[in-house]
């Protein structure tokens, strides 16, 4: 009955991983994560807001009951308990190997583990990875002891190269980040699953619960998503939907589905008819 995902000795209870971006406020973030059942949450590394926090006159103007806490306040971890959730920092926004290395190292220093969701972005419009840069950064960080989870495209060769370079798993995109298109090329995902001996976490592009179920039915080990929950009309309900979507897909994958056929087969018996 145990069906845990283990990456470099770390045990993941949930096969749904969620991001923490784009929520209305930290409270909604916390509730959505809770509803999703995820035990891994991604975070970004950004400058602390250094406006003097003790200054009383600021509060004369900004009523904390009226205005939300700024998203880049340092309080995210007040809402997401690192004892309960595995914190997975990303290098979102990094367009060069150097930046990706810098953010990775800062993230490790700020955090509690060697986990890094490595992103080396290729351009702003697609947010597709720059895979050659990604490959080099993976190699360097793996040597420094990071547990590198690279956000990559769905190219089976690149997936193989990343694992050879020391990545702990591959995180191919389903579709562009935030696009909600679902797995656009299940063939490539299938080929990676069959040819690369490493965990595969689908990252980015998922739109709804059935997309997640489809990913899991293909045999993926987990799904990471953010916008699909945070951008839904009711994020809490969608978080729960995603939880069940992962469970549904994983169970179906393990249960072994019926083959597809063009013609029918009756489900009621013919014998005993009048």
């Amino acid at each position: 009955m145990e069906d845990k995902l283990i990456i470099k000795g770390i045990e993941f209870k949930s096969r749904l991983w969620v991001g923490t971006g784009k929520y209305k406020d930290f409270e909604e973030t916390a509730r959505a994560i809770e509803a999703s059942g995820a035990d891994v949450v991604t975070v970004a590394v950004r400058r602390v807001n250094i406006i003097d926090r003790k200054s009383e006159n600021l509060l004369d103007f900004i009523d904390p009951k009226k205005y939300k806490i700024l998203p880049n306040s340092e309080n995210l971890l007040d809402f997401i308990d690192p004892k309960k959730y595995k914190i997975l920092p990303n290098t979102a926004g990094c367009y060069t190997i150097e930046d990706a290395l810098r953010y990775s190292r800062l993230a490790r220093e700020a955090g509690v583990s060697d986990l890094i969701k490595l992103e080396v972005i290729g351009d702003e419009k697609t947010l597709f990875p720059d895979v050659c840069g990604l490959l080099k950064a993976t190699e360097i960080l793996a040597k420094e002891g990071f547990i590198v989870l690279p956000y990559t495209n769905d190219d089976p060769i690149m997936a193989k190269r990343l694992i050879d370079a020391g990545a702990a798993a591959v995180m191919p995109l389903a579709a562009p980040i935030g696009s909600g298109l679902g797995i656009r090329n299940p063939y490539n995902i299938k080929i990676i699953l069959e040819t690369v001996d490493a965990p595969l976490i689908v990252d980015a592009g998922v739109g709804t619960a059935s997309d997640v179920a489809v990913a899991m039915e293909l045999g993926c080990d987990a799904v990471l998503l953010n916008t699909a929950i945070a951008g839904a009309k009711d994020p809490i309900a969608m978080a729960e939907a995603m939880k069940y979507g992962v469970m549904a897909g994983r169970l179906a994958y393990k249960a072994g589905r019926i083959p597809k056929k063009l013609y029918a087969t009756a489900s009621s018996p013919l014998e005993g008819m009048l």
Partner: protein
Amino acid sequence: MKLTVNGETREDLKAATVQELLDELNIQSGRVAVEVNLRIVKKADYGSFSLHDGDAVEIVNFVGGG
């Protein structure tokens, strides 16, 4: 002393070490990472790591991200 902290030039700060800077800025040291002149400062070294005129300091933490 002139410091560049998170991209802003500040001349009003009195801190002589990283730890003093965090204290002065009212930042809890537990959940941030600090870089001085592109070099990461380990948490254990905050108290002993001296700041000098012209230093570029970056103080980062985790924010919501996907």
